[in-house]
């Protein structure tokens, strides 16, 4: 477990999250070290969400939104890409490899593409090695679960 990279995937409800679901329905194999966190749109992503994930020790972050031109909210995915670029700039300043973070675009019909993205990112992170900010794997797992629960609660309208 401790040698497997932990990947947090911020997935848009309208595309990547459905694609991940489809990948499961299609019985596609992909690394099980990805933790999917659903967003109403990748336009919801903020730079501090991404940095908070790295600060809590995840090895890599995927932001997965709709195909360009296909955003349910018109331009949320375009805004997300710019925020991801800003976060990559900050990662460079911090001293972390910016390749640990990437934005992908896919449609809800692309279950195979989702599996491919996770596999590609998992391989890349295995080559880069674990994040130097990583505490023990159980703590990372707890942090990721907390973030996921908070996000789901916010989506359900339970957030205070």
């Amino acid at each position, binding site marked *: 477990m401790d040698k497997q990279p932990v990947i947090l995937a911020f997935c848009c409800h309208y595309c990547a999250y459905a694609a991940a679901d489809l990948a499961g329905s299609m019985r596609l194999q992909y690394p099980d070290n990805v933790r999917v966190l659903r967003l109403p749109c990748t336009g919801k992503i903020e730079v501090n969400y991404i*940095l908070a994930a790295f*600060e809590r020790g995840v090895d890599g972050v995927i932001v997965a939104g709709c195909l360009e031109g296909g955003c349910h909210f018109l331009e949320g995915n375009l805004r997300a890409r710019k925020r991801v670029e800003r976060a990559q700039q900050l990662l460079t300043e911090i001293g972390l490899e910016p390749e640990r973070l990437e934005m992908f675009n896919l449609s809800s019909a692309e279950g195979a593409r989702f599996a491919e993205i996770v596999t590609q990112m998992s391989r890349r992170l295995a080559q880069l090695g674990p994040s130097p900010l990583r505490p023990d794997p159980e703590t990372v797992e707890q942090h990721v679960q907390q973030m996921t629960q908070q996000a789901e609660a916010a989506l359900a309208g339970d957030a205070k």
Partner: protein
Amino acid sequence: MIVADRKSVPEIRDMIQDHQRVLLVGCGTCVTVCLAGGEREVGILGSALRMSLKLAGRGDVVVDECTIERQCEDAFIDLLAQRAGDYDAVVSFGCGAGVQALAERFPNMPVYPGLNTQFIGILEAQGVWTEKCAACGQCRLGEFAGICPITRCAKHLFNGPCGGSRDGKCEVNEDLECGWQLIYDRAKALGILEKLEAIAAPHDWSTGLDGGPRKVVREDQCIAGLGPKA
């Protein structure tokens, strides 16, 4: 508003190298609007700084964040005063006035700037701010159709344009609009072109960066015996 942008993470990390407990203080006024030093930006920088310190082998340094409504007014710093005692340094994410207001309020605590204060300007487009005012202390916008030749002309000419004005652009930078073209066009639209025929008098720079810090005093508003807090 006052426009600023952030310093790099390594620069801030190096500034606080001698401290163990550091408070990052945001400002809820101008720098929040220009997305440089408000609550969200301070949160981002705080996170980045903690990671950077950890990678530099200084993970034991405590970096916390808080944002007050306005750093340049002592009454608002009251909200910060109790908390500040728990730290041995402050990084201000306010403009230069905010940094100095904190330094005056906390004479025994090092205060560092987290931002580079740039200018007085306006939002030109989403994410783009442009300088409009040099705070020269002697406003003459009325003579120039409401467009400032000090900030808008690269040469600060009061009797322009110069020979470097081409197709409405400045010779200094082809992306830069010629300030005097803007003045001419607006004066023409307002029907006051004849105003530009007069030779503009030299500017009185004594009201600008001259003779130490400037001060504005409103005697009717002053209360005897009540100065700034110690």
